[in-house]
């Protein structure tokens, strides 16, 4: 690293530089119908170098990758080529973060456990969660990653962190007399909570049996719709994506500060905070790729856009103090209780092909693979239906649960009640 930095400093064209080093050690297990099909290990390291060249009133940048095999001669050439490319880029100048150093560990209980042992523990929990007669897990994939990340720049910034993540992809299947059906489950976590993982899979096993029993409703359903944490994650991240500095600067947004995302609210008000690290959130990180330390930024308060967030370059272009690339989303809970839900018929979505949320065309909807229709007395599993509506209307009347759930970067209400959705 010292040599790389000294070579960068030795190039007269290079005004500044940044080095991102990302070492990943992974252990992965792939099961087919309960039997081990593949075991993988990876041990790799990316070193990405970004050079910044100040020329006239502009600042340009370009990047390249350094491999273990890269020779000194090749490195000198790569630096010169990147500097020449950066000279072609006429961007407004911005400054790099300065003089911050630190070594961090993102909270996880994976540290110190051999990955092959942890993977075996996880796979055992997953398979043990299937207690369903005629139920199976036809495919299970377990990924464990240890990330060691370092950011160094020419302005005295030098930060490194170790973080862990795991992903389980499981395919709960119910094999009935008439047909076999499945659901898709992806579970991301950075600390192992054995009971939580077991419950997650067990719940999906029950859900897949319900999919087997589900049928297309005989009559058109006209009722409110309940979304769960997976779909709420999609909905709330869709809002936050419009409030990134880069989206605002490039006009790729329908919102600006002060705008109401809930224009005539009659339900619970929406408040969203973006954060660098949240306990139990798999996307937690201490700094972003520019090395900016990550805190919190409230971006929506009581249904109105309060602030933007995002990376160093676009933050400065907008005249803001950059928050850094905050990856965790926290949404405030609301007032919706189970007692409220019990009052009226509603359709609770359990699994979708993928919720589509498009603020440009004011759309929310998608194909429902499994839902429960609560008619006030019993639960009726239904499938073969779709839902759609106007996202702006839906946000006006949305009711948010008072209970919190976490799902891959999202921490917020575990359920939401939507009015004005068409079920067809």
């Amino acid at each position, binding site marked *: 690293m010292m040599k790389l930095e000294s070579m960068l400093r030795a190039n007269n064209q290079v005004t500044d530089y940044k080095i991102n080093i990302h070492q*990943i050690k992974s*252990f992965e297990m792939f099961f*087919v*119908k*309960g039997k*081990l*099909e*593949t*075991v*993988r*290990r990876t*041990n*790799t390291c990316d070193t*990405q170098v970004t050079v910044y060249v100040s020329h006239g009133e502009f600042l340009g940048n*370009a990047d390249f*990758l350094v*491999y273990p095999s890269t020779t000194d001669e090749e490195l000198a050439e790569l630096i010169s080529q990147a500097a020449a*490319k950066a000279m*072609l*880029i006429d*961007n*407004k100048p911005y400054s790099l973060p300065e003089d911050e150093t630190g070594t961090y560990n993102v909270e996880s209980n994976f540290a110190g456990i*051999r990955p*092959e*042992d942890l*993977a*075996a*523990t996880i*796979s055992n929990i997953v398979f043990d969660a299937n207690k369903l007669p005629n139920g199976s897990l036809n*495919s299970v994939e377990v990924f464990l990653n240890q990330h060691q990340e370092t950011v160094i720049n020419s302005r005295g910034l030098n930060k490194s962190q170790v973080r862990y993540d795991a992903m389980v992809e499981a*395919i709960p*299947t119910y094999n009935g007399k008439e047909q*076999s*059906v*499945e659901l898709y489950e*992806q579970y991301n976590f950075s600390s192992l909570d054995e009971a939580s993982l077991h419950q997650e899979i067990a719940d999906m096993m029950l859900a897949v049996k319900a999919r087997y029993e589900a049928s297309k409703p005989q009559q058109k359903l006209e009722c409110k719709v309940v979304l769960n944490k997976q779909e709420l994650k999609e909905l709330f991240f869709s809002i936050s994506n419009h409030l990134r500095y880069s989206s605002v*600067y*490039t*006009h*790729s*947004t329908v919102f600006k500060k002060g705008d109401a995302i809930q224009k005539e609210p009659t339900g619970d008000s929406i408040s969203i905070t973006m954060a660098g690290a949240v306990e139990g959130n798999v996307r937690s990180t201490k700094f972003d790729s520019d090395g900016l330390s990550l805190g919190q930024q409230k971006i929506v308060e009581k249904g109105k856009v309060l602030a933007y967030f995002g990376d160093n370059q676009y933050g400065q*272009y907008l005249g803001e103090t950059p928050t850094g690339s905050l990856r965790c989303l926290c949404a405030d809970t609301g007032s919706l209780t189970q007692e409220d839900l019990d009052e009226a018929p509603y359709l609770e979505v359990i699994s979708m*092909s*993928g919720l*589509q949320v*498009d603020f*440009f*065309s*004011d*759309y929310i*909807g*998608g*194909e429902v*693979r499994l839902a429960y229709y609560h008619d006030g007395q019993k639960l009726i599993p239904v499938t*073969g239906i*779709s*839902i*759609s509506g*106007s996202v702006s209307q839906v946000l006006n009347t949305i009711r948010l649960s008072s209970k919190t759930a976490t799902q891959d970067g999202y921490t917020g209400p575990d359920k939401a009640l939507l009015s004005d959705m*068409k079920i067809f």
Partner: protein
Amino acid sequence: MGFSQFLDSRRDRAKALVKILKEQFSYVSILGADSKSTAIRVDASTSNISNGQDTECGFVVKLNNGSCFFEYAMDDIGEDVATLAEEIKEAFSASAALKQASIEHISLKDEPLVQSFARASDLHEYSDAQLLDFCQKTQKELQGKSENILNAMVALNTMEVSKLFISQNRELDQDYAFIGGVLVLVYRENEKVVQVYNFEGSQNVADVMAALPSKMDALVDRAHHLGYAKPIEPGVYDVITDPSITGLIAHEAFGHGVEMDQFVKDRALAKQYVGQYVASPICNMKDGAASALSIASYFFDDDGVLAGDTQIIKDGILVTGISDLASASQLGTSPTGNGRRQSTRRKAYTRMTNTFFEKGTDKLEDMIASIKHGYMLFETDNGMEDPKNWAIQCVAQYGIEIVDGKLTENYVSPVVMSGYVPDLLKSISMISDDFEICGSGFCGKGYKEWVRVSDGGPALKARVKLG
């Protein structure tokens, strides 16, 4: 341009590593990749030259001894091959993870073949400065097309792929390039902001540079119409699909369902339908890296199997699926050249390449004229597969209403197509006599393992649920 010197320099080390590991494993192969890509992007206020998403350099070793597969991914094969071989063996030595029941009776063929493959491209004739200059000029022209344009973006993505495959009996290398160009508009009209894009791809920069500017006016016109687009009234309609939506149906509705690693897992209903009608008798569908020339075309796959041209549906009957080495070995079939990895750091799965319906005999104008009330659907947004239960969700960017056999000025957006795959495929009643394939997107396996794919075909007339 030309095969990677780095991979060439590791060729003998890879052979030596295979030889040592063969002492312990019945099957050993090594895939090396050295792919360079550059993303050049210019919009109204910023520009950028950076490494593209397709950049990678590394190796993956695949091992088998009749039961479960082992893979070890690394950055390089160093000079001390013997030590590396020991590290790899040690990585898969006894542990709790490996005491679990494994698949059995795996027998892998390693048929002899030594061959080099290359595809000509003019990429090396263009400097980064020339590519950037094209983007800047095109962006300026596009931005000037309308005062309603909030931001115009022009991007070129270049990709030069070098791959080396070594096993005991096979030594294959390939190098090829592909260039993708994109126009994007953020446009405001009728107090509505819309985003639209158009893609052009070729193995030659000159083709992309010639084609992109010719798409500008149509893109602005589309943005203008989408400013007035309304939501569609949910229901079941007669539709005509443009080649992009035809490809989306081929890919999502049926392509994922014939990935034979899903057959192994009993995750695909299609496994039970081989030899049966799954679509209208006028339907023919193919997949293969050798079936068309696009961003998903290669000479051999990441298992060292030569690119295929697989007839999936013939006259409405499901003929066969597509497979990678691992799934074919478990099913007792021959791999079709569809073993693909996101990179050497990721597992190989059965993946689609160029997936399309073959052209038919109808004229597009006759197809439109045959519809009393319906929609013509355009431009893929995204889609999601459900190969076990054959549910589909395909999202088109927009549709144009057809009334009394004529396209109107009534646009709807977005349009989500959903339903049951056989219902959709069996409802296909007309297929146009033209053909177009497009490869602007990535395909995931579930929500991960992203690879470049293309899809397309002719226009189809079908009856589907829209919402």
